[in-house]
């Protein structure tokens, strides 16, 4: 059966990896390709790159990033950040990315999910969903967490699945960077309701948090960023711990 995956996430700005608190106050964490190679060697199962460069040349810089990363690592990787057209997706997959992550663009145009998955296969389409609690309700946020939408979190997750997404990357903005653990309750709710893999994101601070997400929420993969960038946790050690606790992982 499939192993549970550990996925470092690299927020990239002008080729550098950055990490902020609740999407702001960015700290530099090193060169994107160097860090990617380090994670590959440490035993990461997959990588996610989110480009937060805000330039008009965006597509070009993303394709360039994908080419460089593809040369450096031999594990699958996803790329995201402002992708909104089929032509962009095609260029990124051709350059060597395995999947694209779509966020704001699919809220604006949900049909992009079905079009992309029809053309490139659902395995290449990751729906990135950013959720934050507002007045007791899980609301969907877009534009890197800056803009609230009318969409309700749980319903939107079911919808992206129906539209043909291959995976859901579910980020809890409430938990992000708190290092107090993933939003296990909401993750479990989504895992039970959809028929595609769910990646937990936001809140990991220690090995027990990963174990809890795999055991209690039964997610397929766990994503973390700063925890790995700043060497608070080593991926190899984390996977050994999970294995000792009977989680099926690739060592």
């Amino acid at each position, binding site marked *: *059966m*499939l*192993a549970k*995956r550990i996925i470092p996430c690299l927020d990239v700005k002008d080729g550098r990896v950055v990490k902020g608190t609740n999407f702001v106050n960015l700290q530099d964490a090193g060169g994107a390709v160097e860090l990617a190679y380090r994670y*590959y060697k440490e035993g990461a*199962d997959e990588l996610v790159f989110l480009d937060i460069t805000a330039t008009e040349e965006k597509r070009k810089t993303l394709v360039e990033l994908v080419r460089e990363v*593809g*040369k450096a690592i*031999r*594990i*699958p990787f996803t790329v995201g950040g402002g992708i909104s057209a089929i032509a962009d997706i095609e260029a990124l*997959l*051709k*350059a*060597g990315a*395995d999947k694209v992550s779509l966020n704001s663009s699919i809220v604006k145009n949900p049909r992009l999910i079905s079009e992309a998955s029809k053309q*490139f*296969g*659902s*395995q290449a389409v990751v729906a990135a969903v950013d959720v934050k609690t507002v007045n007791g309700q899980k609301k969907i946020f877009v534009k890197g967490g800056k803009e609230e939408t009318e969409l309700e979190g749980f319903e939107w997750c079911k919808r992206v699945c129906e539209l043909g997404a*291959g*995976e859901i990357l579910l980020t809890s903005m409430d938990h992000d960077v708190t290092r107090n653990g993933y939003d296990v309750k909401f993750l479990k709710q989504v895992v039970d309701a959809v*028929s*595609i*893999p769910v990646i937990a994101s936001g809140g990991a601070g220690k090995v027990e948090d990963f174990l809890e997400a795999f055991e209690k929420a039964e997610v*397929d*993969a766990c994503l973390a960023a700063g925890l790995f960038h700043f060497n608070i946790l080593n991926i190899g050690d984390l996977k050994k711990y999970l294995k000792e606790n009977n989680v099926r992982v*690739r060592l």
Partner: protein
Amino acid sequence: MIAVVDYGAGNVQSVLNALDDLKVQYKVSNKEPEIYHADKIIFPGVGEASFAMRKLHLNNLVTMLRVTKKPLLGICLGMQLLSEKSEEGNTCCLGAVPGTCVKYDEAKVKVSHMGWNEVKIDMDSVLFEGIADGSHFYFANSFYLPVFDYTIASSVYDVTFAAAVQKNNYYGVQFHPEKSGEAGIKLLTNFIEKC
């Protein structure tokens, strides 16, 4: 010289990146004579089976791929196309190995089968030389070839299915060796140096 078949079904860049690591000479081609005269053939593929077969027909590659005596490695959809038939798009494939590709049961497992799965080596093959039994490889597939006489390695996802096949000069792997870390690189090296 290795020919990497580029017929417009799926991207070949990841395979080329891996071949660059191995410092082997290759040529990316969709031209029958070029591929025919290569020493070895790598036959990748991602996407839908009937679409891919149509592309092979349009590029006039079907007969050559059927009759070649050169070692050929089909990857992912490339391996499925080596079979006789795929239920995906009710497609007549190359028939280099027997069998029909079928879909995983959506009532029992998440489809597609995507991620790292353990590969059990069922038969001695140079393809898996130096690779530990039970190593993980990266898969991304919704259809599979059931286990049959020419299965050299298998994996389990609700059912036991063919992870790798070999018949005469035809080799096929359901997983992506170019995305499977060091075990995948080893497998590609074996194909290039030993098959």
